[in-house]
C-alpha cells in the first residue's frame, strides 16, 4: 500500500480537503482560518483551493460561530467550525451545550445537527492559563455531543473525515504539541470510525489508557519500561464519546492493572469516568490493584516553563506511576 508522510497538521488539512471536495455541503468557518490559515496553520492553502465562500473568516465572535454553524447544519450544510483555542469554547458554550447538543433530542429525533467543532487544546506552548486548557471533560458530560481526540496523524485524518460525515455535533479536539508530529499514512482514502479505540502498543502487565498527547509520552515511557521488564499495553480511546469501553475491559482482563493518563485537571476529568466505568464493569473482578489516574494538577496552567511542565504528566511521571502500579 503506497504511503506518504504527513504531519498531524497536514493530515487534518488533507481530511478537510478531501471532504470538501467530496461534499459541497461541507464548508469551514472560524477566526483567521482563511488567509492566515488558522492560528496553527491547519487550513493554510484551503482558501486558494476552495475560495472564500467555503473558507469563511468570521469576525471575532465565538458564540455566533458555534450558533451559525449549528443553524446551517440544521438546514442542510455540514459546517466545520474552528474555535482558535479550546479555552474559548466557553464563549460559545450556550450554543454548544444548550442548543447544538440537545436539538436532536428536544425535537423528538426529527432534525439533526451535523457539525464539527475543531479546536486545539493543551499546554506546553507557554501561553498560560487562558490558552492551555484541556476542557474535553466538560463536553463529555453533555449528552448529544461526540468528543474526538486524535493522538497521531493517521487517526487525525481518518477521524476528522468520519466526524464530518457524522450526523451529530462532534467536538474535535486537537493538541498543539502534536501538530508537527509526522507519520506515514496511506495515500489512498481511508476512514477511522468514531467509537473505536486502538491498541497503540500491546503488553501484558499493565493497561495504560492515554488521551491525546499522553499517548506519545506513554509510548516513550513504555519503551523504557520494556527494558525494565514491564510490558505495557497502551490503549488510545481516540473518541471519548462514544467510548470504546469494551477494548479497555478486555485489556484489563488480560493485564489486571489499569492506569489512566490525561492532561486535563484530575478532578472531574474524563479519567474519573473511565475509572468508574471499569469499576462498574465485569473487569473489576480481574483487577489486582486499584485503578490509578495520572492527570494534570488541579491548577490553572502556569506560565513559567518549569511550572508549566510540572502541571501536567510528563514521561517521567508516567514511568513512575506505571512502576508503582506494577511493582
Amino acid at each position, binding site marked *: 500500500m503506497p504511503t506518504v508522510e504527513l504531519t498531524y497538521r497536514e493530515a487534518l488539512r488533507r481530511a478537510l480537503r478531501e471532504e470538501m471536495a467530496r461534499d459541497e455541503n461541507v464548508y469551514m468557518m472560524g477566526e483567521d482560518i482563511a488567509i492566515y490559515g488558522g492560528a496553527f496553520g491547519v487550513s493554510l492553502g484551503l482558501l486558494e483551493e476552495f475560495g472564500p465562500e467555503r473558507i469563511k473568516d468570521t469576525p471575532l465572535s465565538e*458564540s455566533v460561530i458555534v450558533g451559525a454553524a*449549528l443553524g446551517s447544519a*440544521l438546514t442542510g450544510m455540514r*459546517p466545520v467550525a474552528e474555535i482558535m483555542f479550546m479555552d474559548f469554547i466557553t464563549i460559545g458554550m450556550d450554543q454548544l451545550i444548550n*442548543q447544538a447538543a440537545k436539538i436532536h433530542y*428536544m425535537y*423528538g429525533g426529527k432534525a439533526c445537527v451535523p457539525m464539527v467543532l475543531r479546536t486545539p487544546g493543551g499546554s506546553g506552548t507557554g501561553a498560560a492559563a487562558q490558552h492551555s486548557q484541556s476542557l474535553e471533560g466538560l463536553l463529555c458530560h453533555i449528552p448529544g455531543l461526540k468528543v474526538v481526540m486524535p493522538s497521531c496523524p493517521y487517526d487525525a485524518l481518518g477521524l476528522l473525515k468520519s466526524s464530518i460525515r457524522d450526523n451529530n455535533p462532534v467536538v474535535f479536539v486537537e493538541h498543539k504539541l502534536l501538530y508537527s508530529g509526522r507519520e506515514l499514512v496511506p495515500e489512498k482514502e481511508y476512514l477511522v470510525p468514531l467509537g473505536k479505540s486502538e491498541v497503540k502498543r500491546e503488553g501484558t502487565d499493565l493497561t495504560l489508557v492515554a488521551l491525546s498527547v499522553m499517548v506519545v509520552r506513554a509510548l516513550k515511557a513504555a519503551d523504557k519500561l520494556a527494558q525494565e521488564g514491564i510490558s505495557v499495553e497502551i490503549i488510545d480511546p481516540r473518541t471519548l464519546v462514544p467510548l470504546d469501553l469494551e477494548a479497555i475491559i478486555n485489556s484489563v482482563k488480560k493485564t489486571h492493572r489499569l492506569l489512566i493518563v490525561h492532561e486535563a485537571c484530575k478532578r472531574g476529568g474524563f479519567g474519573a469516568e473511565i475509572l468508574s466505568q471499569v469499576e462498574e464493569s465485569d473487569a473489576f473482578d480481574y483487577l489486582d490493584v486499584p485503578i490509578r489516574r495520572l492527570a494534570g494538577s488541579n491548577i490553572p496552567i502556569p506560565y513559567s516553563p518549569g511550572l508549566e511542565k510540572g502541571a501536567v504528566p510528563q514521561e517521567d511521571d508516567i514511568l513512575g506511576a506505571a512502576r508503582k502500579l506494577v511493582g
Partner: protein
Amino acid sequence: MTLNKNDLIRMYKQMLTIRRFEEKVAEFLSQGTIHGTGHLYIGEEAIAVGACRAIENEDYITSTHRGHGHCIAKGADLNKMMSELLGKETGYCRGKGGSMHIADVETGNLGANGVVGGGIPIACGAGITIKMKKLKRVVLCFFGDGAVNQGVFHESLNLASVWDLPVVFICENNFYAMSTATKIAFKIKDLSLRAASYGMPGVKVDGNDVLKIYEEVIEAASRAREDKGPTFIVCDSYRWKGHSRSDAERYRTKKEVMEWKKRCPIERFKKYLLDKRYLTREMTEQIEWEVNLSIQEAVDFAQKSPFPSLKTLEQDVYAN
C-alpha cells in the same frame, strides 16, 4: 405583493386562532393540565401573523420561549402543537420538547427556544445555508426586547450584516423582559437604533398593526432575497398576560395593561375589515366558530393521544 380580501380574512382568522389557542393553554396551565411553564402570546398576535404572511412556505423562522404564535402563523398543525404541550407522543417533539422547543424543521420552523436570544445565531446559520445553496429563501428571526441585550444578538447581527445574510431580525418589543422594563434595561428609547451599529436598516413599527408589519417584512424580505442583506425591525406591542405561569405582575400597573388592551390588535384588524366591508358580522361569527372548533379538535386529539413510552427515554440522543 398586495393582499387580497381572502388573504386578509385568513390573517384575521390566524390571529384569532392564536388568541383562542393561548386562552386554552392559559386554562390548562392554571388547571395543571400542562405541567411545565408557558409564555402566552396574547396581545402580540399581529406580529407573528403580519410577518409570516410576508414569507413563503419554504422560508424559515426561528422562534422564542413565547413561540406558539410564530408556530401557528408559520402553519403548524394545532393537533401536534397541543399534543406537545400536553407532553404526548403525537406532539411535534414526541413529548420531549414541550412549549419551549416546538419545532418543525421540514416546514421551516427551526424551533422555539428556551434560551433568550438562543435562536438568533441559528437564524444566521440558516441564512448561510440559503446563501450557499442559492435558495433565494429568507429567515425571519423572532426575539424579544430582552434578547436585544444578549451578547449573541450583537454577534449575530454583525455577522449577518458583514455576510449579507438573508435574515430579517424581528424584535417583539413588549416593553418588558419578565419584570425588567425596557426603560431600565436600555438607555435608548428606540431599540431599532441598534441597527446602525451593524450598518443595516432599522425600522420601528406599530406591533399591533398587522398590515404595517406585513409591509415592512415584505420589504425587508425582498431586500434579503436580492442579496442586499439583513434588516432589523422592532415591533412595539404588549403582552397581556403575566410573563409565565406564575407572575404577580408587581412591576406594572393594571392601568397600563388596560390601556394596551384597548389597542387590541385583533379588534383593530377586525374593525378595519368590517369598515372595509371585507368582513360581515356573520362572517366573524362563522370564523369564531371555526376557530373554536379547530382548537377543540386539537384538544381532543391531544387528550386522546398516549404519553410517550418510557422506552423512548433514551432514544434520539444521537442521530444515525
